[in-house]
């Protein structure tokens, strides 16, 4: 039978056990972040290596950029991560600062009989017209004009887009808004938009699944998903007028040629970057922190983590098909830290 004294004894044992478990963990500083799912794989890889080195753990919740911004505004987490930059006035209002951490590419993918990865070439205006539902057949003269020598079958085009709100959609629609005036006018850009045509798949895996299932479909996914699922990506004409293939080099070229120096608070969406070898739909994720830290110790660890990641995390990023920031940009960011943040 349980009586009072056994209860007390049990309670004290539990308390000692809890102290033993939590006591060891409390020696290292655990920092918490939340937001973008785009950056989640590379953040978790970085945090594993970083924990090995320093013992400090990073707990990241991949809840979506909007939720990440909301949580950092409420101050419930140490840093937020968002696929869309916050506006300078919003940052000022909440006393926040932001900087990019890693670069990734978004690639249009197709499923056309007889067309291999990298064979189909499109420019932004044509891609926009396809997603607007204005070009409905693969043998459309506009597509043929860009693809001399490639035999395209006469088949209906099925557009596949993301059904959930996402940073991938944000960057993709941002690119279309820059290169296709009708898109900019009718659909605009955002994490979710009113898609003029097609079917929506949930997540990168949903879109890649639909594209693989549906003959004649075109969708867009993060580069890593196209590689992993062996879906045919296409080449795109960039702002400099050259056709480029998605790869680590072209993503890096986009990040390097984007005009970061004149962007206040790194508020720059790098789609349609000007470089001769730049992949036009290149994206980054911004990390958002308080300029006046609410918890000095945690913020110090957070900065130490991002400094380590930006300077030493290239290899982990590359193994997941992300691209580390170019060294010049890392210098910019570190200068921004010393001038803007108290830590």
């Amino acid at each position, binding site marked *: 039978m349980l009586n009072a004294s056994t209860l007390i004894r049990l309670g004290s044992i539990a308390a000692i056990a809890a102290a033993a478990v939590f006591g060891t963990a409390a020696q290292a500083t655990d920092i918490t972040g939340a937001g973008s799912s785009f950056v989640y794989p590379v953040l978790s890889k970085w945090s594993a290596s970083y924990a090995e080195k320093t013992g400090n753990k990073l707990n990241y919740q991949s809840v*979506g950029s*909007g939720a990440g911004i909301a949580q950092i505004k409420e101050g419930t987490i140490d840093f937020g991560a968002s696929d869309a930059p916050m506006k300078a006035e919003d940052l000022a209002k909440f006393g926040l600062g932001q900087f990019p951490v890693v670069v990734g590419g978004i690639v249009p993918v197709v499923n056309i009989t007889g067309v291999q990865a990298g064979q189909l070439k499109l420019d932004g205006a044509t891609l926009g017209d396809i997603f607007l539902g204005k070009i409905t057949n693969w043998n459309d003269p506009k597509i043929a004009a860009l693809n001399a020598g490639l035999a395209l079958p006469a088949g209906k085009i099925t557009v596949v887009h993301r059904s*959930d*709100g996402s940073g991938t959609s944000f960057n993709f629609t941002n690119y279309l808004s820059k290169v296709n005036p009708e898109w900019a006018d009718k659909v605009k850009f955002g994490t979710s938009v009113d898609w003029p045509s097609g*079917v*929506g798949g949930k997540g990168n895996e949903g879109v890649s699944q639909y594209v693989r299932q549906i003959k004649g479909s075109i969708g867009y996914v993060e580069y890593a998903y196209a590689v992993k699922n062996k879906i045919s990506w296409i080449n795109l004409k960039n702002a400099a007028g050259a056709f480029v293939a998605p790869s680590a080099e072209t993503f890096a070229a986009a990040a390097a040629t984007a005009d970061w120096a004149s962007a206040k608070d790194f508020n720059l969406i790098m789609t349609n970057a000007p470089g001769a070898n730049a992949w036009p739909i290149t994206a980054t994720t911004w990390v958002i922190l308080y300029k006046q830290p609410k918890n000095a110790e945690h913020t110090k660890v957070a900065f130490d983590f991002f400094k380590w990641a930006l300077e030493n995390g290239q290899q982990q990023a590359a193994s997941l098909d992300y691209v580390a920031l170019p060294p010049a940009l890392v210098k910019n960011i570190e200068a921004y830290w010393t001038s803007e943040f108290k830590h």
Partner: protein
Amino acid sequence: MQANDGVTAPGMIQEQRARRDARDDRLFGWLLKLCALLVLAALLGAAGATLWGGREAFGHFGLGFLASSAWDPGSDTYGALVPVYGTLVTSAIALLIAVPVSFGVAVYLSEVAPRWLRTPVASAIELLAGIPSIIYGMWGLFVFAPFFADHIKPWLTNYLGDKPDDGKLSWVAAHVPFVGKLFGSDSPFGASVLAAGIVLAVMIIPFISSVMREVFQTVPTRLKESAYALGSSTWEVVWDIVLPYTRSAVIGGIFLGLGRALGETMAVTFVLGNAMQLSPSLLDPGASIASTIANQFSEAAGMQKSALMALAFLLFVVTFIVLLIARLMLRRLAHKEGR
């Protein structure tokens, strides 16, 4: 003294006991009342919170929110017509398929199947009811939607739809109104309102059939035996004896399944196609209330978030109306039987 004690003590003890029992009973009554009130408070709280969250959308769009088919985060215009329509139609398709099949399963298991088969099949159905909906969603996306697109959809569009591949309208599409529109589609993908309805049907069959089976077993054997003795076939026994005897419980089971279908989220999100467009065709992609919320909530802010909250409140309203209809039906039946 001792003799006195012997007389009064049992009386006092009895009285004490009676008083204690009365107090315990009262306490127990309060405890039960608290449990029941907790459910009510949770329901009102959830409904109130969604209404409060959706106040901006309701205030801004007014009644137009219910009638508008626009869902455009770009210009911040939202309407609930497409998701509400999608929710109602997918659930209706699910019921249309699930009710007869579940009835068949239940009748087979309680009347026809050999005794050794009943328990294993009944446990299999209960297992099926326990599968998480995300598994149904994955199955729908990877297995059912491609199969539907390759084998079922072409047949439906060609023989019943108004946009057949060879351009020749079938007799049905040409002569029966609406059927052509219902099955006409020029999109080649499997994800659609009909596919979602079928996956939902598979999901709710275990619920409905296990309720039906349980209540069919409560029918007194002597009623059934009497009917058989009078020369009734199995069908006549089921239709004229078993079903009338269990009617209200059967309807209750059906509405339990319907409630699940209306609120189902993950499975539907994977096979519905998630297109915010109003199409009369069952073979075109659509959207449901729950799938729209699941898709957009994490990245939504401002008016979009409010519109999603308003949608959640509408789901409450839709479910409430459905349950109300169930109640009315049951009352009418009881009335008829009492006459």
